[in-house]
């Protein structure tokens, strides 16, 4: 006599989400290689260009902001990273090749103490979590719990001179990046901020998100996050930070000056020449929501722009 058993007694809620078990596998893999150091945020140096991942320990957690964080799965699978591909779903599958160890960030220009930081040095700085809205110039947005430190903390270590009026941020160029063989943008990707924007307490150098080291497609191992500006200002995978006396050229501005200004502050009143910036689609939401002035950070950053015509300085 055959008895037919139900296929499984496991209720769906007990099944481990895919991301979680993948993370566990990576944990096991790294632990097996004796590189558990990665898991306390000091990073590891593997010979192969294998994606470095792991939890960051000991950061100061952020208080909730009353807006739900975008699912990690969406934030790590929908990325503009043109060095890999102009398709937003592709970098997640391609950026694993990016070699993030060893990694150095050269900080120089108008500073008293120019210095090259290893990624280990940056990971040793006190880390804090910041839950920020991220508004892409294309009209979509996310809420991301970043982990990093204020840019001003790094600036203190190199001591900018009185001539430092701007800061230039330069992204890596590696053979692992097929996109840079196409002249879509003027590589390497470069971004820039005015010094007061860079030194603003909201401006973050970021090494992680969602409690983990940054996935490569999100700009590992260290990226800029400027939450009141369109996403492309927050340059990824930084290899050089240069303090300058003159306004640096920026990648998108060089590509189309009439569409992407140096400032590129989130502003619902100033449309992109080809589409409206009045509303945005929050990833995971059905209806669009109104875009907020300075992405909702107006009370903190509007003072940086008093007296400026934001229609001209878009």
């Amino acid at each position: 006599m055959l008895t037919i058993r139900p296929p499984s007694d496991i209720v769906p809620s007990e099944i481990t989400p895919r991301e979680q078990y993948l993370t566990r596998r990576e944990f096991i893999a790294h632990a097996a290689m004796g590189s558990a150091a990665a898991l306390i945020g000091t990073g590891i140096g593997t010979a192969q260009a294998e994606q470095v991942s792991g939890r960051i320990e000991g950061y100061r957690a952020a208080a909730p902001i009353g807006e739900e964080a975008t699912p990690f799965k969406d934030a790590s699978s929908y990325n503009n990273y043109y060095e890999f591909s102009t398709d937003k779903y592709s970098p997640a599958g391609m950026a694993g090749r990016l070699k993030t160890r060893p990694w150095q960030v050269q900080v120089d220009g108008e500073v008293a103490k120019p210095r090259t930081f290893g990624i280990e040095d940056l990971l040793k700085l006190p880390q804090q979590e910041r839950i920020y809205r991220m508004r892409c110039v294309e009209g979509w947005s996310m809420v991301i719990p970043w982990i990093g430190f204020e840019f001003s903390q790094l600036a203190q270590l190199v001591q900018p001179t009185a001539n430092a009026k701007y800061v230039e941020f330069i992204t890596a160029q590696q053979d692992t990046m097929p996109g840079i063989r196409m002249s879509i943008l003027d590589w390497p990707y470069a971004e820039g901020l005015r010094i007061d924007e860079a030194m603003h307490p909201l401006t973050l150098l970021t090494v992680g998100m969602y409690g983990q080291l940054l996935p490569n497609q999100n700009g590992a191992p260290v990226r800029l996050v400027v939450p009141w500006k369109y996403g492309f200002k927050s340059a990824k995978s930084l290899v050089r930070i240069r303090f300058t006396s003159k306004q640096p050229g920026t990648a998108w501005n060089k590509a189309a000056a009439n569409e992407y200004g140096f400032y590129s502050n989130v502003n619902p009143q100033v449309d992109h020449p080809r589409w409206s910036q009045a509303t945005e689609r929050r990833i995971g939401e059905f209806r669009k929501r109104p875009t907020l002035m300075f992405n909702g950070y107006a009370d903190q950053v509007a003072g940086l722009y008093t007296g400026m015509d934001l229609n001209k300085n878009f």
Partner: protein
Amino acid sequence: MKALSYAKALVFLLCLGPLARLIALGLMEELGANPIEVVTRSTGTWAMVFLWIALAVTPLRHWTGWHVLLDVRRMIGLFSAFYALLHLTTYLWLDQFFDWVAIGHDILKRPFITLGMGAIVLMLPLAITSTDRMVRALGARRWVALHKLTYAAAVLAACHYLWLVKRDLSQPLIYAVVLLLLLLARLPLYLKRRARRSPARRAGAAAGSTVRPATRPVA
């Protein structure tokens, strides 16, 4: 005749494939982080693909002699209009939520929306007049003249795509180049027809024509 109707049924099912795929991916929650964007792009892409295929029928028919292609062209053209309407609906509903002020603003201020709207407006009379009865009612000559709007719709659609991308023009350029080739492929046919119509030629050789007499409107 039976083989033809099987072939038509097969083409019909193939044309429904892109929609079936979207529905399946939607049900499996596999449309990615921004499903509405995926639906918008996919329906727009397939509207263009089917229009391009419909435009390939005339040159293909002349090179291969497979006049049977004409029998599926109308269906493919209608599927192009169908996907274009899905594309438009996605924009009006899921993107703008029928905010007519914002939509009006978009049409007036944003060239790529203007062009896309133009393409669909041109396709509508073509879809409406696609029935046999409409062909008879209009008369073949007028019907053919009207359906020349297909070319204008295709050009507008290609420009719509070129104008909307942020930076990487490679994909829309492929569509534009293919359209250009499809239009160029008609040039010899057009010149031949013109030459045949001109009185000087008509006096000479009228008998040698190999073109099948038009039992059906040819656009």
